[in-house]
């Protein structure tokens, strides 16, 4: 998937799943949209479905640093690239 395609999918998930309409790409999701750690866990599940692959515990813990939509896009690109190269961050 291209970055734009991933962005569209993430925007859709934010609208349908989290009732957050068109968040700014650099909005701080917690401060601006009340997106909390519970939502982050739910989002990781959506990302797993998008990747068609389970995220390791270490990869999930890394995701806890995510603050913005752009961070999410970077994270997905990186997870996707790791899988294309046939490896994941081990636990």
């Amino acid at each position, binding site marked *: 998937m291209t970055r734009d395609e991933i962005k569209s999918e993430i925007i859709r998930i934010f609208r349908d799943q*989290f*009732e957050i309409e068109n968040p700014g790409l650099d909005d701080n999701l917690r401060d601006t949209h*009340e997106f909390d750690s*519970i*939502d982050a*866990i*739910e989002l990781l*599940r959506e990302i*797993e*479905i998008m990747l068609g*692959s*389970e*995220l390791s515990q270490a990869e999930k813990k890394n995701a806890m640093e995510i603050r913005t939509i752009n961070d999410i896009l970077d994270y997905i690109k990186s997870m996707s690239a790791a899988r294309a190269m046939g490896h994941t961050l081990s636990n």
Partner: protein
Amino acid sequence: MERRVVITQGSAITPVGHSKDKIVKSLVEGISGVKKLRQDNLLSDFIHCGVFGTVDYPIAYDFKRLYRKTMGPVAYYACQVAKEVLEGSGLDNDFITSGRLGVAFGSTHGSPTVQREIYKSFFSQSRSSFSSIGAVDYLKSMVHTTAVNITKMFGITGRVISSSTACTTSSQSIGFGYEMIKYGMQDAMLCGGADEYDTTTVAVFDNLLACSTEFNDTPHLTPRPFDNQRDGLVVGEGAGALLLEEYEFAKKRGATILAEIIGFSCNNNGGDLILPNVDGITATIQLGLKDAGISADSVDFVSAHATGTKMGDVIEAQAVGRVYGDSPVVSGFKSYMGHTMGSCGAIETMITTYMMEEGFIAPTLNLENIDERCAMINHAQELVESDIRIAAIQNFAFGGVNTCLIIKKI
């Protein structure tokens, strides 16, 4: 330090209505909220009981997603009645969040609807764990989900008590809330209980042959507490919340006082977990009167637990007869709505305050021919005008837990 405790607000979602007007109308006109059991594609085809005390009217929830995301159906009920109570109370946000207000709220077992979804993923044939249990499923389904979703929604920082003692859940909430205030630990308590539509509870009672099964085609004719033709209880759903305040605090701020709680007792039968126990129930009633510092002849009205089971009603009538004789008028409100489980104590307490305020006693619905083994007490068989001064609300639960609340009009 012992302080006086008053009830200043109440709200309930019941099978016979949501607002006070609807509930009073149902009581006055003898309208039942028992309906046919809904198909749930899981247990309903295997249950002999075909009726349920059903909330079948729409409720307009307006909770933000921030709150909704940790709520199962039972928490929706709980938060809605809590919201109505707090909005009606006039308490300001500074007080609500001060730590002087606590919450005593529970349910029978959290949200069985959400628990089912969790179990489905356990038994799913899918090998992929990433699409199984949601991050919030535990928060939605846990036993204290009602209490803490209320604290979250309103920023309440006081004590949290979350009873989960089946049919005495919310009578314990009120009683423990009363004690919190009486002994100076909190100045106000938001108390109650809730239970959602759930056929597992029906299956439990059905297996124990405790459910009504003879009125599946005429749901409004069951349950029939104290009646010759009673054949068991009917499970129901609902929620009830009451605001308790320290008397001087309530008076000073000009709050409406619905009733004073003057006594509470809670004990255990100390043995069998299912069978009702006349000595245990008698002791509960006596302990309640002792805590209130009144004699049995001061009580005008008894709200009986009265589930409509063969033995439960007889044992309760015997205990009431032992303590009160045939003096107070006795009614059982489960006859209108079935057994709303974790919410019944709060709903029945609130109905009692409605009757105190409006000056009437609603009869036990479907009580046509009194079982002679229950006939030693003064049953309400028709609507009567009555100025209730002091009332007792009694509830009993699986596990041998008994409670008695005594309230007084002031």
